């Protein structure tokens, strides 16, 4: 029973392939999981937009959307109807082709990222030899689409937003990849499926997740920060900072193309969350050995949604950074910390298990954290502001 529920989608795929004519069997076996991803994640996007608006509202002591449907849960339907029926405006001086291609490219590339994320046991589109590398390679192409959107709009705000976005994404890609290298070292594989399988064991009822090691915890936090920046979420949403540069690179987009950008941004968020879950939080593995009877895909989606909730929480809490703070943070704090995490992960591999291993591996990270904190804070000496005209 448990086994059946766990593998229900896999069994369905096998059943569908077996019952289709032999000529289309390979096509069916590919199309079905792709269709699953194309349905699952956009609907998750629809739910998340409401959840986000409601959560942010509660954080600010408001109600949030509550008009469309019961308790406002049909809000995404209204939003979709609105954005589909809106006029699609393209600026007269815009580069029409590039302007059109940018959102399409973004969504396509982001969907590619899902190919290597294991959604459940035996549920991955392509078990690649180098899955983690594929994920980051596909993620690198999103920068192109952001730049295309900003440049083709012929709008200074768009261009500024695009330049900010590209600079930010390149800067944060380094800590993102470096912090995942620690996991790759520990698992000894670049394949996402193998990485999850390595974490699926239990000692007693305690899981073998990488986040439960000192380097894994630090790496997870760094990865989470870097992925927030990668997906342009608050507090790293300078590229679209609506109070400074209107909406950044999608200022000149309206209607369906704007909806595509919105979709792409959220899908990117799900994808990086899925990757964080895969790398650090044990993917589809249950947190305790006595909970393994719950289907694996429920665990995966639950973990992803938990991360999304944390995203929303952080967005409701922190103000936007300044550009120089953003760059300083990436290069002066994140990069040294991730390098130290890799060093600590190497130590972990060679030390015998025990309390001492914990202490020895945690010590360099904690030390660097304290030192960097001291140094960075001493740089930021705030003086009393002098007003020229007031008083």
């Amino acid at each position, binding site marked *: 029973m448990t086994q059946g529920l766990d593998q229900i989608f896999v069994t369905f795929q096998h059943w569908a392939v077996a019952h289709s004519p032999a000529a289309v069997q390979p096509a069916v076996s590919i199309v079905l999981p792709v269709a699953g991803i194309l349905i699952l994640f956009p609907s998750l996007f629809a739910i998340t937009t409401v959840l986000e608006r409601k959560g942010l509202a509660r954080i600010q002591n408001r109600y949030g959307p509550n008009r469309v449907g019961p308790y406002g849960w049909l809000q995404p339907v209204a939003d979709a109807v609105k954005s589909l029926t809106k006029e699609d405006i393209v600026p007269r001086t815009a580069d029409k082709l*590039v302007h059109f291609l940018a959102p399409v490219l973004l969504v396509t590339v982001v969907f590619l990222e899902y190919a290597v994320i294991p959604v459940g046991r035996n549920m991955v589109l392509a078990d*690649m*030899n*180098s899955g983690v*590398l*594929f994920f*980051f*390679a*596909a*993620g*690198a*192409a999103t*920068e*192109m689409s952001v*730049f*295309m959107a900003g*440049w083709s709009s012929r709008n200074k705000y768009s*261009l500024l937003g695009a*330049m900010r976005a*590209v600079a930010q994404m*390149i800067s944060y*890609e380094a800590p993102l990849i470096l912090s995942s290298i620690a996991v790759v070292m520990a698992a*000894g*594989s*670049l*394949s996402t499926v193998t990485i999850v399988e390595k974490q699926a064991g239990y000692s007693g009822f305690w899981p073998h997740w990488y986040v439960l090691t000192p380097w894994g915890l630090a790496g997870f936090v760094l990865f989470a920060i870097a992925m927030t920046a990668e997906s342009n979420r608050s507090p790293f949403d300078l590229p679209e900072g609506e109070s400074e540069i209107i909406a950044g690179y999608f200022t000149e987009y309206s209607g369906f193309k704007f909806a595509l950008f919105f979709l792409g941004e959220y899908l990117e968020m799900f994808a990086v969350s899925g990757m964080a879950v895969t790398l650090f939080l044990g993917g589809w593995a249950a947190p305790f050995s006595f909970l393994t009877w719950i289907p694996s895909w429920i665990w995966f989606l639950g973990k992803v949604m938990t991360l999304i909730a944390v995203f929303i929480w952080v967005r409701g809490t922190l103000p936007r950074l300044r550009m120089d703070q953003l760059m300083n943070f990436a290069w002066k704090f994140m990069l040294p910390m991730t390098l130290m995490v890799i060093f600590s992960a190497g130590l972990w591999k060679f030390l015998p298990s025990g309390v001492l291993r914990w202490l020895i591996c945690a010590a360099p990270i904690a030390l660097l954290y304290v030192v960097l904190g001291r140094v960075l804070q001493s740089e930021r000496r705030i003086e009393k502001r002098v007003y020229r005209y007031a008083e």
Partner: protein
Amino acid sequence: MTAPFVILAVVTIGGAVAAMTLRKLVHCALALAVCFVGLAGLYLDLNAQFVGLVQVLVYVGAVVILIVFAILLTRHDELPAQTNRTRVAGLGVSAVVFALLAWAVTAGGAQMGAAVAAPEAAMKDIGGALMQKYVLPLEVVGLLLTAALIGAVVIAMEEKKKAR
């Protein structure tokens, strides 16, 4: 000569031609990205998964973006085309080079390259080779990249005014 190979080759060559002939520099950079993606596809088609993905990661994710940055940081008025003489000379040289290469390939490459069983380049083997046999080149490349990083920063940095 399979269908994917032909398609990818056409994409690559088309992107390259566009990158070298389009008038707007940003269009050139975008076409270059298409060319690099096509090349990455060719690598994947040739069973070199690692190199293909690194190609996308480094070229599309970094080099093209760098070129785009350079384009936006320099003013480029529509430059007049090269004088006809240079143009003809350049195209002539490249045509001659291509003819030579093509002759060499078709004349000399026949004895090799019959259908060979696709070799498997496992990530583990690549990692092992990098860390054991090729560890010295790897370190040298690391040094080179660091030097390039510092050098690029120093070169591109605004020269400080001496009189202050």
